[in-house]
């Protein structure tokens, strides 16, 4: 285990051209990196899951975070939430372009919706990391 970790740490960074297109496409279209790397089955599952979660968040009328400054907790929550929202790629961009704007209202459904929107982005980060590992040859 320790040896495996050490071996992983010693691996050189692969050239940017090898992984950047897959990671960038993976950000823009959830699962897109996997499609580019010819893993259509896994790409389709990622696309369905991340998009499904984001759409459920929209239908639950979750709020999108905007970066705000103030005390440390407010800054962390709002900036982190904003980054999480943005990581959904085209889903986020389209919803902003079409004018989706929901104020943060009380109620468990809205609250779940907000979490669904952020988590969709966070799951897409996992998908992008997986695409990076495949493109870098660290995973089959």
């Amino acid at each position: 285990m320790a040896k495996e970790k050490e071996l992983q740490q010693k691996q050189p960074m692969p050239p940017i051209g090898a992984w950047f297109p897959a990671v960038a496409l993976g950000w823009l279209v959830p699962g897109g990196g996997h499609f580019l790397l010819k893993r259509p089955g896994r790409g389709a599952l990622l696309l369905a899951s991340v998009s499904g979660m984001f759409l459920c968040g929209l239908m639950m009328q979750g709020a999108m975070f905007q970066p705000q400054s103030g005390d440390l907790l407010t800054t962390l929550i709002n900036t982190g939430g904003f980054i999480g929202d943005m990581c959904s790629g085209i889903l986020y961009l389209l919803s902003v372009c079409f004018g989706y704007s929901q104020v943060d209202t009380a109620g468990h459904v809205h609250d779940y919706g907000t979490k669904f929107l952020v988590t969709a982005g966070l799951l897409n980060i996992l998908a992008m990391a997986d695409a990076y590992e495949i493109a870098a040859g660290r995973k089959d």
Partner: protein
Amino acid sequence: MPKMNLSHFEAAFLFAVFTSVVMGVVTKRSDRDRLHYGFYTFGCFLLALFGLGWLMYFGHG
């Protein structure tokens, strides 16, 4: 945009399904392991969901 009005359980169940699929797909190295890990993660989510639900029920007295 159609609206969804889910209960706590339905929303948490849906969350567990989507998250488990992604966790299963991105973590392991073979399809068999991915399937196992996806189901394992989903089981953990459900266990936590019911466990915390009962804990809150008894906590309220």
